């Protein structure tokens, strides 16, 4: 069976586990402890949800646009699932990225530059509010990129 398919329900479950566990020790070791204290502080009270869309998901992976919906509450992930174009879109922040951007992130491209180079973009939600916790978002995006998945070649 091996790795789940990218943007599948099983992959979303694995993402949920990875976000709950948080960044790896190697990743944490490269940055100041105060930075991670801040990360944990934001995480403990983060009230919002993200719908992270793929605008042009290949047909082999499902209908598009598809969204990885991540809901936070009480310091943990309360919902992490794939929602399709026919499901209601209910998230504080809706973001979108092309499949190329997702693929690059999954292959290890830097999450900070994924945001800064506008590969992933905020499509709905208050921009200034979203950015008050941008370091938390970027670190979570990096975690999502590390979750193993199979992709069609």
């Amino acid at each position, binding site marked *: 069976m091996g790795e789940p398919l990218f943007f599948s329900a099983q992959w979303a479950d694995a993402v949920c586990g990875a976000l709950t566990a948080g960044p790896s020790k190697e990743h944490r070791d490269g940055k*100041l402890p105060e930075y991670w204290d801040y990360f944990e502080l934001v995480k403990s009270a983060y009230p919002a949800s993200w719908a992270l869309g793929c605008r042009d998901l290949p047909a082999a992976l499902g209908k598009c646009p598809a969204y990885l919906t991540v809901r936070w509450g009480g310091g943990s992930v309360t919902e992490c699932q794939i929602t399709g174009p026919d499901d209601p879109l209910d998230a504080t922040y809706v973001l979108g990225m092309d499949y190329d951007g997702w693929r690059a992130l999954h292959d290890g491209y830097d999450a900070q530059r994924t945001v*800064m180079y506008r590969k992933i973009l905020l499509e709905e939600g208050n*921009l200034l*509010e979203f950015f008050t916790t941008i*370091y938390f978002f970027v670190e979570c995006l990096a975690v999502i990129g590390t979750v193993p998945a199979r992709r069609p070649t």
Partner: protein
Amino acid sequence: MRLLAHAVLTARCEIQGGALVAERKSPTAVLREGPRALSEAQVREIEEADLGSVGGVDIDDVIEYVHKDLKSLPDFITLYRKYLKQRWDVYDLDFTQDKIDWTEKMSEEERQSFIAVSSGFHHGERQVEIELPVFMIGASEEEKLHIAAQIEDEARHTVFFDRFYREVVGLAGDGIMDILDASFPWVSETFVGPFGLLAYQADEVRRNPYDERARVRYGTNYFLWIEGVLALSVMKVTLSYARWRGFLPAYYAGFTATCRDESRHVQGGMRYLQDAVRKDPSMISEIHDTLRTILSLSGVASRRIYFEPLGWTEQEVQTLFFQQLRRKLNDVGIDLPPDLEVLLEQVEPTLAGG
């Protein structure tokens, strides 16, 4: 040890009366001196220096010059005409001596501190170059000229760092992005705060180019924060180091000329914000909201940068940083509400610029 080197250097410089530096004061002297008065002759020297003579201009005078016109801001045609006189050719710089200084005279600690600061600029210049074009769409005809000039300035600043990293630091790569990739490991994780925000604000302006409120939020981040506070503070750190030690003459000349370009950008940006608030006083809330987000991010650091080899402490950089912000806000007439005053006290500088 450093004091001794300083004394030797001072003596050598006085004997030679070199073109690069006429005066050797401590890099942080400006923190104690406070605002300085520029004579007409000094202003003329700054405004008219070409690339060959700009190396003799004191960086503290150039930073003072940024503030000179903030109380009565020049119009965009005046700024455009200054640009036409002040633009310089980045390919005229000769980095031969800089390479010798970098490899033979600077210590490993100095190189690491320097590169930790300059990498923020390398990426910052590129970011402000590519995010500016959308702001031109909704600008007045006169401001369009100034923005077109500024885009060219920022492109030139990007090439300046590309050349510095290739020819002095020794990074290798075919294209501009290869060199950006190579210097990115020195860029702090918190860089995405102001520069990611700018990218998303540029996208907001792209979607609604005539939305004046979105433009004011963008302008607050770009011109007031990134250029007016971050860039000018951190420019000063590397430039005063180079001047103090008598190192990196082409870097000093090119980046001092860059600082003079930034003075036009900051003045143009402050003019834009001031005009927007005069036209519609409720715009002040967009400036405050933007500063609230920026300040709440700026207290977070992911790496410790050691400024000491460059002659600074973190505390001194922070003091410089506050001075820069306060002066812009006071000169342009932007008051802060109490919650922002509190946030401001918790801020640490992000090492970047544009």
